């Protein structure tokens, strides 16, 4: 039996590798996507266009302006001389932040009145708006504290001393790129596995297989194992790229990472086999894979946190293997997590893997015999 399964695995790998189109699906798109998304997908603030309207033009206000100009995330687009252009600049999105320093700025500072500074933010991208607000607040608060200390004001009772654990510079790339490991692994594995049975059905080789002494379980293994191999290989390439190209630190060990990867790929393979068993044509298999993939990516915590979702949606994500693997991969990369702490993520994936493989086997038998 082992020999037959081996022959099936060899056949499958040859079929995938000898077809130019399949080869491309394995290598081209993932690499391109890795590069583009690795750079494009970012929540960091970079080159935020800013306009400043300094009505005061004093030493203090210039000091404040200088702090904004010196901030790496902000990029000055216009120094305004009147409030006329503010609406146009904001509406047209040429700037996302307008800072208005009131005429009475220095006077209020010196007389101990609260010196008003307006920060007008474009809310059309609410996430960026929040971040811009927060960042601007930080700059303004620092100015406040410094100025207060320099001018003999009583210090506030307490100040915040903030640290970011695991990611001191809060680079969102360290969050997203490990996520791409999960994303691309799922996409490639699912496409390869889901399409494989359907393709054989369409070309007629499936019938040819069924007539041989191969048993359904042999054929299933012969489809699943190559998918597994390809998935793990793909993931390894992307992990290597993450570490050496994107400089994301890999603080944990390879064992917890690969254990999670294995379980993840098995689970995805099981789902792919289920889709493959149900689909009669390649087109149906593609649609089925797509219909699973899109929700599972969007609702996995890849870009938007699961904690933000309504409770009933969070419950839905419990059957999404990508959710667990994302936690694992990020924890291993950034938190140096080990197998023990991640146990609560491993077993749900194992359960999903088991259930999907059993279902795939059952569907397989039903549809073929």
């Amino acid at each position, binding site marked *: 039996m082992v*020999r*037959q399964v081996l*022959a*099936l695995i*060899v*056949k499958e790998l*040859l*079929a995938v590798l*000898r*077809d130019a189109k399949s080869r491309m699906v394995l290598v081209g798109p993932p690499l391109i996507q890795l590069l583009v998304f690795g750079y494009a997908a970012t929540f960091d603030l970079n080159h935020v266009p800013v306009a400043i309207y300094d009505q005061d033009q004093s030493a203090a206000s210039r000091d404040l302006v200088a702090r904004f100009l010196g901030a790496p995330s902000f990029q000055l687009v216009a120094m305004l001389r009147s409030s006329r252009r503010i609406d146009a600049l904001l509406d047209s999105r040429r700037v996302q932040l307008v800072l208005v320093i009131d005429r009475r700025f220095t006077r209020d500072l010196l007389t101990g009145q609260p010196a008003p500074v307006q920060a007008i933010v474009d809310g059309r991208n609410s996430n960026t708006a929040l971040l811009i607000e927060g960042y601007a607040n930080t700059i303004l608060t620092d100015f406040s504290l410094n100025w207060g200390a320099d001018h003999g004001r009583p210090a506030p009772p307490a100040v915040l001393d903030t640290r970011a654990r695991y990611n001191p510079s809060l680079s969102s790339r360290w969050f997203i790129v490990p996520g791409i490991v999960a994303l691309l692994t799922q996409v490639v594995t699912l496409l390869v596995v889901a399409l494989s049975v359907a393709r054989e059905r369409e*070309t*007629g*080789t499936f*019938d*040819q*297989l*069924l*007539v*041989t*002494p*191969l*048993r359904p379980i042999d054929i299933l293994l012969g489809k699943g194992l190559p998918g597994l191999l390809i998935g793990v290989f793909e993931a390894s390439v992307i992990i290597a790229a993450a570490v050496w190209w994107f400089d994301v630190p890999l603080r944990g060990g390879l064992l917890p990472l690969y254990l999670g990867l294995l379980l993840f790929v098995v689970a995805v393979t099981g789902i792919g086999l289920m889709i493959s068993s149900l689909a009669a044509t390649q087109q149906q298999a593609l649609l089925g894979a797509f219909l699973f993939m899109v929700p599972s990516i969007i609702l996995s915590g890849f870009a938007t946190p699961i904690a933000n979702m309504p409770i009933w949606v969070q419950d839905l994500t419990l059957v999404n293997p990508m959710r667990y693997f994302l936690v694992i991969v990020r924890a291993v990369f950034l938190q140096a997590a080990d197998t023990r702490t991640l146990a609560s993520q491993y077993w749900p994936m194992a359960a999903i893997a088991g259930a999907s493989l059993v279902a795939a086997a059952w569907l397989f038998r039903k549809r*073929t*015999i």
Partner: protein
Amino acid sequence: MPDTDPKPAVRLAGVRRGFRAGKRVVTALDGITAEAARGAVTGLVGPDGAGKTTLMRLIAGLLRPDAGRIEVLGIDVARDPLSVQARLGYMPQRFGLYEDLSVAENLDLYADLQGVPPDRRPERYAELLHMTGLGPFTGRMAGRLSGGMKQKLGLACTLVHPPDLLLLDEPTVGVDPVSRRDLWQIIDHLTREAQVTVLFSTAYLDEAERCDSVMLIHEGRLLGHGPPGQFTAEMAGRSFFATASLGRRRLQACLAAVPGVIDAVIQGSRVRVVTAEAEPPVAAGLVVEAPDLVLTPTPPRFEDSFVARLRARDGLVPPAALTPALPLAGEGGVRVPGMSRAASPQPSPASGRGGVAGDVIAVAHLTRRFGAFVAVDDVSFTVARGEIFGLLGANGAGKSTTFRMLCGLLPPNSGTLRVAGFDLRTAAAPARGRIGYMAQKFSLYGDLSVAQNLRFFSSAYRLTGARQRARIAWAEAEFELGPMRDATARDLPLGFKQRLALACALMHEPDILFLDEPTSGVDPLARREFWRRINTLAEQGVTVLVTTHFMEEAEYCDRLVIMAQGAVLAAGEPEAIKQGARTAARPDPTMEDAFIAVIEAAPASARAA
């Protein structure tokens, strides 16, 4: 009959066209020069891959030739395709009817597209519907018509605007003989009454004889061009029927090896022999094992001419009988060649197989439904060991469905079936190891090389180690696949693809062989070679089950059933079935005549609507 206009409808001069397939460039047409007369039926005859479809598409202006010139109705096609298309009707091989539209809606669409004025339509529709017999079905969805009806509807749509030139690309392939006869009646009517020129491509060689003129094409070259009579005339005095008390298969094998004989095929209980020279050979002593051999001259047929030309072109001597396969392991003795088959088949060797002695396959009341559609309707038959058994019928008759049930690929709704004593659906894997299967279209791994396919399938059939290597070597030698062992399977020419498929089905030395339309589309020589192998296998005790829609292949079988609409209409030996259609007017019916007779005798519900 062609009218007196001397200008031909189609003129081809040095037409050449190639395509890229993978890394190679395949020459589909290599310098075709010919003409098609107006008002006549010209047949483009040749096997699959000969270039017929490419030629049709060139004439229709859908492709441009790499070299040469094509003139249709006096217009240069490459320069002005639209004018040509305005005057022609073209029915491609896979004529896609819009399956979600009804018959009437399909006709309306093509009437719109061809610019038929609305006031002319009712009359035209009436004429077309009457001609095709589709009158009562105008409201039915095209997807629900039978195969023959779809072809007729396709033809009607092509004719809705009366064309001057009608191009029909293999309209009769796989269609039941009754519909085929109807289609020919329509074509005859068109040429006689409406002076339409018809260009008709087909792989059925017997249809060549119904054309006014024939272009014989093979591998992109024109092998001959002229009235069919011209072809058969050159074969005068070279065709004979051979009879002897020796079993016909054995007789055929022996005759094929005789020098001076360029063709020997089984036809019913006789063997048709074609000689290289017009001199009648001396019958006595021709075949050592058949001292009572009698040769009766018979009028030549078109196929004889085709085979003669192919042999002449290839300069081939007919190959000797092939080396038999290694003896079946663990079986009783190989049947000694030359033993008479007149008696009942040999009893099966005592190797402990279950089931009725002698009956390797037993099917009883097999039924299969898909929704409301009954694909197989109460089918019963048995097949004895070493028999070649045929399922003959048009596309959609239920042959493939029956086959798939026999192979265990599909569960029946009711009825029983036993193969070598087992029900393959529940049979353990070893039972499957005794079966070989060759599917209808090429279904091996196109991306893998020949050697990789051989290795995979031998492993799948549990061959290992030295035995596996020996069998692979045998396959490469036997089927002449050695030189192309590293070629990608998909890029092989059609004949080699079929050889590979057969090799993969035989490496594990099965007792039973299932062949689903194995020779559809191949040229006559390849077909003969294929059947030579099959006959050799049958002689060795392998049971062979074949489905086909070629009438003449039915003749090669020991017994056959004729299927239509999922039911068995007739069963028995080919000769017996043909005798059933004998009438005073038709003392020597062909299998096609018998088929038509059987269908027309069947109750109305079983007839193709």
